């Protein structure tokens, strides 16, 4: 239980620290070319080797982490910021027309294949990190709205909500004071899953060339570049691939650990 938390926090903070460090220091400039030293396997100078035009892979992965985290973070933020209030509102008005409109709107978004629409959005408005964020963020809204509404609906049947209603509290007040804190653990777990999915989605978009544009490095495009050279220089694919795995794994473990940590019942059991 706490082991998950520690391992998850370690892996996630490793990635975040690498991203933060890249603002002040990277072994080499991530955009500088050194053609004579191209396709070098990991060695003393370039710790994780170089790519087909001699850029330092470690530097690129560090700066790429920045892109991935920023895109996923803002996309999840959009999902929570819009999805959670919508879900709470729908649950408070259960069965009414507000509920119907919100949830059918969500169904509408769900009905589209998310990655295809993300490609469509970036194709129309132009490739780039901002459009990738918006495209991924929109598809997070119904996910959070549904999770929130589902958790909130079961809480609305509980007696402590009835007691709050007897105490004259309005639906908005009850939603914020009583419902939201009690579904926080659901949301945290969902947020970490969406965060890791966001990282994967960003990698997928930049893999097809619709994410962050060169010279900004991103893990997805590094994988795309490595594709044709994988037998010649496997480290080019392995390094960004492992970076994605570590991040996604770390976030999932962190979410699990946090859920246990936030639960006051388990907190006392630990003390």
């Amino acid at each position, binding site marked *: 239980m706490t082991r998950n938390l520690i391992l998850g926090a370690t892996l996630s903070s490793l990635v975040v620290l690498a991203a933060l460090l890249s603002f002040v220091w990277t072994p080499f400039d991530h955009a500088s070319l050194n053609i004579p030293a191209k396709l070098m396997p990991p060695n003393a100078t370039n710790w994780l080797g170089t790519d087909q035009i001699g850029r330092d892979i470690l530097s690129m992965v560090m700066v790429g982490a920045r892109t991935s985290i920023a895109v996923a973070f803002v996309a999840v933020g959009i999902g929570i910021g819009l999805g959670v209030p919508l879900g709470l509102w729908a649950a408070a008005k259960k069965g009414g027309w507000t509920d119907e409109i919100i949830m059918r709107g969500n169904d509408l978004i769900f009905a589209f294949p998310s990655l295809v629409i993300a490609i469509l959005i970036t194709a129309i408005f132009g490739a780039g990190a901002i459009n990738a964020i918006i495209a991924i963020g929109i598809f997070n809204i119904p996910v959070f709205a549904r999770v929130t509404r589902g958790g909130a609906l079961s809480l609305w049947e509980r*007696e402590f909500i*009835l007691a*709050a*209603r*007897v105490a004259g509290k309005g639906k908005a007040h009850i939603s914020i004071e009583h419902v939201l804190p009690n579904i926080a653990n659901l949301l945290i777990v969902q947020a970490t899953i969406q965060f890791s999915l966001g990282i994967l989605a960003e990698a997928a978009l930049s893999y097809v060339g619709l994410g962050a544009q060169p010279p900004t490095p991103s893990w997805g495009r590094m994988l795309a570049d490595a594709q044709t050279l994988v037998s010649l220089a496997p480290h080019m694919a392995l390094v960004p691939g492992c970076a994605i795995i570590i991040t996604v794994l770390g976030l999932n473990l962190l979410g699990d650990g946090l859920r246990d940590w936030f639960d*006051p019942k388990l907190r*006392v059991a630990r003390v």
Partner: protein
Amino acid sequence: MTLLSIRQLGLSIGQKSILRDVSFDIGPGQIVAITGESGSGKSMTAFSIMGLLPKTAAAAGQILLNGIDVLSLPEAEMCNLRGDEIGMVFQEPMTALNPVHTIGRQVAETIRLHRSVTRAEANQIAAKTLERVGLPPDQFPPGRYPHELSGGQRQRVVIAMAIACQPRLLIADEPTTALDVTTQAKIIDLLRQLVREDGMGLLMITHDLALVAGLADRVVVMRTGEVIEQNSTTELLSNMRHPYTRMLFEASTHTVNLPAANTTRPLLEVQNVKRTYALPRTHLFAAARTFEAVRGVSFAIREGERLGLVGESGCGKSTLTRAILGLDAVKGGSILLNGEPVFSDGKPNLDVRRKMQVVFQDPYGSFNPRHTVSRLVTEPFHLLEDPPKGTDRKVIVAEILTAVGLSPGDANKYPHQFSGGQRQRIAIARALIIRPKLVIFDEAVSALDVSVRAQILDLIADLCRQYGLTYLFISHDLHVVRTVTDRVLVMQAGQIVEQGDTEKVLSDPQHSYTRALIDAAPRMPDLDAYRKDAAQ
């Protein structure tokens, strides 16, 4: 010849000791009841016999069924034993049946598991078994699904599954706790008859001592994993050796002394209230169907009066409560508190609401687990225009916690740090903190153990003396209603069928439904009479 013999059964899960030195016997055709309060280990004893313990549990001692120690049997052999030699009936008939299979199939499945019979033969035996438990095929075809049956009928199906292979031992874990009293009486009669006809041993687990006294041949009293006392029922009733046993029996017939009611003008007036629910349409173009949960109910509570409301599940008690509290709008009629409507212009009236508070049934569900006690009990302050702040607030919280028998220091704790009874005290503190004119107790003591229930009833009587409470006490337990109310309403199918002074209604019921309720409720035997018989 004993059928089941438990020898020094011990059980621990991790470091925690669950059962210690439990020993008792059951003979063929004998009914043995294990009784005790929650946490006494009653159910764990039953699960040990069935071999349904959690993986981390370590058992010691012996459980001999026909001389074979079931604790030493491998899981595969236990599977053969379960359902064949031992049958089990669970508490909750709603969850003990698979909702997607027909009742006939579920009974037949148990038979096919243990007997080498064809599907047709199994179905035939299943139909016969269902008929035996009171579900004849002409009225209840085996092709019915569980949701088409009532709670009592479902429990009959569960019993049919348990006895289909004619087990030698039947274990019933609180088989009637989830059922209404009139249904309970029928299920108990059925169990008694099956034991007599088949010569099965019946191990009955229940917290209801009146039920134990009327049914069992032998009683085993447990507390915190140990057998406190065991004896034949008549012996035990006439001569209880252990003080805990005496305390249990006294607590379950506990009566309180209410101060004389000082009633004045009417406080709450309910006039011809109706409430309907929409039902799903049978097909797309069918007329919308409705269900009338409350059908024209009228009554009044005078200030200072303690009114009871009894009835079985589905009679409309809860719907009526919600309407009185202003949580739902009513379809027709009016609810006035102090002459003002609870609901006006489609909105609950806050002025009226602050004069009413409620105590709910479930001591575990009625608090936000993330708030401290002080925040929980001060929630009704939201109704006040000028709620007390700072030190004043702390003083009031300390005062109300003391009044309900907790300490002021409890204000900073979380609800999960309290037992069920203590939580119910917190719920009462929350209801009383703004000094409401009317308190509604909605099954407020039904989920509590008898000894805790007795304490909470004492507390209510105390608070009546201190604050002169007016309350509506909703319960299905006639004994409790008798001791804490002055007047009682009997509700059936959305209507009030009888009302009057509690003592008069319960001792001389006029309506047939009231009589049925009173007759079905298990009655505690007169212990003094038992003691005298024994002395002679």
